């Protein structure tokens, strides 16, 4: 960084001074001797007009790049955290009742619908156990106790990976199910949306993706309002409904559009278990608070644990309340394109066409979109942790221009939309894939917590371990029930997918470990001076300025320099040799005649021959293959030039003891050869 220097005369002789230019200033900042920090201008500098246009477009869509120090680390109050972390769990009350009813309706004459209330209470009981268990996780892991971390630290890496795979599936399914369900809510106020539900899903996922790529933070009030609006309106609806039930003011709803199950079924324990398994989707998202403990205001663990309890109570009340009211008013699921159960309930209680129905539908849709957004925060963060642990490609650990884990965000959006598209945007069809992963996570993290308490043995560890043990047993039983009763409906996909993902992660880890072993430098090793000899080989297409430049670079690397000319015609070879010997003395030219017109093959064979001819008692030399290259100025020039050079580089990639050096020749550069080369010797460029 040698700056230019401009003398300034000064008013007096003693005032003379020199202004020193600072060419590094737009791109770097010195933070100490020999230490530079790159500025925004240095981070990405597109060279072409198209590149600059695309970069501008990206800036408009995603915002200007942010520096690391611009990260906002806002802590959340309990009220805000409840809204932000609970949107996933609470929003599941919008479709969990419907899932129970869709199973029970299969029994003739609706004889089993009465069981919905009992099943919802049983699920609320399970929720109580799970939330009490997760309170322990909040206390034990103030740095955030996702199922992966708990299982990895307390059980084993493999079980940690199983939890991670289940979590990744869970996050993808949250986006798919929440988006599908949100669109169903929109349908209840705008039925004409139904034929375009996939397009609406694509639009909403795209908007959430762009928002997250811009570095959307869940700390704003914008995230709290829909959650509290939904909770408030849902409680009002349930309260009004229950008052009407107690007052005997119940007019059962006579629906025209009723969901028809594929085939009628008898009332069996299996059917009830299946309804329980479907309704247990209400528990999805419960672990979000335990994952996000560091985001709470201090004392983090206590605040998170209390928020967990508040969330569980709210979710339980909403879920059981919605189910009781639905049963009391004889509300059953509708067929494709019809209203959701909660929408029907709102219409029945608030009166069809009222402002409250509209507000409730909007609030429900918004909280469901927020639930999808929760996954957009959690999935990339988990992927980044896995990448840091070496179980996912390292790209997932890199943060993009806006400090967001861009690769994870884009992957989540792509898979979630793919699933939505494949299942036709139908919430009911997606549910069987959902619950299995959730209960795998619950079970593993609870077992991990039992081991944790046994290991730390702090005050009260016995009852804490007992709570987690009960949670583990219960969630494991539910896992078996969910996986078996919904196996045929689609749970088998998850049962297959989890081991596949684990195998993939183990494969990635093994690859990284193998490469790390190969690249490792023994600590304490003082690197000796290089002692291998160098050999320079320059493949030439003729004699031109680019070739001469490459020869000069070759001469600066070592003394053993030779040019190789692969020729199809002996006459042309003789001409080139005559000129070469006259114009480039001191550098031997090897002509390889190629009667089969191949270029790369004969050169590789020549390099092999050179290697074999090397004395066996000496260490093999490093061969520098210097490839002259003509720098193209536009995309069409790239098609015209350097095709042979490109093929050569590809062929030489990975060849042992070989270094490929590209020597670019730019037309714009002032050439030192102008005075020494005649004009007719300049064209043609190499590799054309």
């Amino acid at each position: 960084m040698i700056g230019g220097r401009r003398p300034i005369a000064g008013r007096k002789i003693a005032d003379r001074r020199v202004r020193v230019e600072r060419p590094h200033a737009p791109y770097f900042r010195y933070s100490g001797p020999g230490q530079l920090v790159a500025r925004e201008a240095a981070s990405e500098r597109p060279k072409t007009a198209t590149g600059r246009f695309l970069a501008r477009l990206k800036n408009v869509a995603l915002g200007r790049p942010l520096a690391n120090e611009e990260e906002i680390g806002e802590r959340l109050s309990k009220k805000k955290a409840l809204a932000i972390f609970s949107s996933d769990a609470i929003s599941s009350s919008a479709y969990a009742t419907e899932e129970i009813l869709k199973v029970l309706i299969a029994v003739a004459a609706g004889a089993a619908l009465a069981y919905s209330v009992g099943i919802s209470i049983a699920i609320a009981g399970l929720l109580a156990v799970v939330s009490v268990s997760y309170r322990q996780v909040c206390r034990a892991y103030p740095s955030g106790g996702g199922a992966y971390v708990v299982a990895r630290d307390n059980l084993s890496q493999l079980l940690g990976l199983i939890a991670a795979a289940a979590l990744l599936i869970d996050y993808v399914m949250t986006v798919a199910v929440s988006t599908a369900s949100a669109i169903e809510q929109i349908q209840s106020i705008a039925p004409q949306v139904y034929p375009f539900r996939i397009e609406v899903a694509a639009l909403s996922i795209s908007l959430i993706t762009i928002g997250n790529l811009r570095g959307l933070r869940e700390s704003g009030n914008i995230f709290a309002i829909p959650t509290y609006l939904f909770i408030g309106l849902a409680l009002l609806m349930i309260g009004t409904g229950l008052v009407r039930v107690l007052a005997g003011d119940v007019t059962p709803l006579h629906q025209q559009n009723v969901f028809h199950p594929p085939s009628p079924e008898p009332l069996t324990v299996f059917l009830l278990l299946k309804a329980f398994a479907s309704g247990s989707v209400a528990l999805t998202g419960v672990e979000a608070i335990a994952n996000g403990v560091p985001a709470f205001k201090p004392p983090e663990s206590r605040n998170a644990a209390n928020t967990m309890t508040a969330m569980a109570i709210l979710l339980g009340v909403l879920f059981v309340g919605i189910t009781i009211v639905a049963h009391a008013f004889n509300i059953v699921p509708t067929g494709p394109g019809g209203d959701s159960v909660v929408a029907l309930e709102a219409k029945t209680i608030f009166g069809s066409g009222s402002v409250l129905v509209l507000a409730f539908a909007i609030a429900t849709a918004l909280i469901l979109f927020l639930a999808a957004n929760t996954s957009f925060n959690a999935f990339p963060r988990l992927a980044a942790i896995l990448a840091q642990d070496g179980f996912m490609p390292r790209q997932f650990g890199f943060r993009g221009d806006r400090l967001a884990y861009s690769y994870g965000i884009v992957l989540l959006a792509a898979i979630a939309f793919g699933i939505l598209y494949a299942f036709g945007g139908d919430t009911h069809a997606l549910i069987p894939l959902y619950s299995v992963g959730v209960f795998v996570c619950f079970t593993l993290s609870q077992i991990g917590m039992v081991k944790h308490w046994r290991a730390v043995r702090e005050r009260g560890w016995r009852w804490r371990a007992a709570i987690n043990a009960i949670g583990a047993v219960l969630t494991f039983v539910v896992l078996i029930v969910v996986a078996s009763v919904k196996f045929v409906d689609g749970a088998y996909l998850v049962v297959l997918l989890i081991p596949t993902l684990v195998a993939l992660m183990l494969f990635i880890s093994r690859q990284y470990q193998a490469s790390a072993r190969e690249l490792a430098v023994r600590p304490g090793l003082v690197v000796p001076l290089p002692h291998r000899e160098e050999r320079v080989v320059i493949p030439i297409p003729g004699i031109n300025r680019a070739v001469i430049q490459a020869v000069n670079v070759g001469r600066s690397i070592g003394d053993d320099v030779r040019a190789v000319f692969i020729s199809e015609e002996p006459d042309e070879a003789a001409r080139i040799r005559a000129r070469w010997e006259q114009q480039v003395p001191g550098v031997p030219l090897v002509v390889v005649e190629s009667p089969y017109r191949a270029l790369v093959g004969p050169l590789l064979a020549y390099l092999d021959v050179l290697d074999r001819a090397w004395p066996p008692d000496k260490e093999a030399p490093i061969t520098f293959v210097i490839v002259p290259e003509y720098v193209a100025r536009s995309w069409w020039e790239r098609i015209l030039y350097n095709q042979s050079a490109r093929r050569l580089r590809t062929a030489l990639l990975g060849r042992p003891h070989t270094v490929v050096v590209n020597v670019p020749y730019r037309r714009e550069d002032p050439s030192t050869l102008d005075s020494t080369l005649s004009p007719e010797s300049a064209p043609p460029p190499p590799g054309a």
Partner: protein
Amino acid sequence: MSNPEQPPFRRAVIALNGGPADERIVRLAAELARPSRAELVAVHVVEIDWTLPLDADVAGRSDEAQRVLDEAEAVAEQVHYKIEPVLLQARDVAAALVDEASERRADLLLIGLSYKTRFGGDFAIGRTVPYVLKNAPCAVWVVREPIVEEQQ
């Protein structure tokens, strides 16, 4: 400067010496300059002794000289203000500062001063500040660092 209706300054030269006072005076200057959107020029002078030509390649190669200005620029960016960093080579720091302020028609020169004592306990003001106070055509503000406990 005496008229309270007028902005305190329109263009100020901030003299940086690489010491801990630099951050303080850059922040102060930025805050004072903000209401009137005054121009701030941060100057760091590298003294060239007489054994070398004045235009010797010294400051351009000095990471330390670059760091002084880069850090000042970073401090200004933190408080959302723009400064123009200037790196100079001169035979005498004080003369270069005065001349730079004069040529740029600056109406304020801000200079930091560290609290140092001579052997015997007297305050050592150095030679740059007195020269600037005596010769600068514009107003001069000297910001002395706080005295740390051990030095009292």
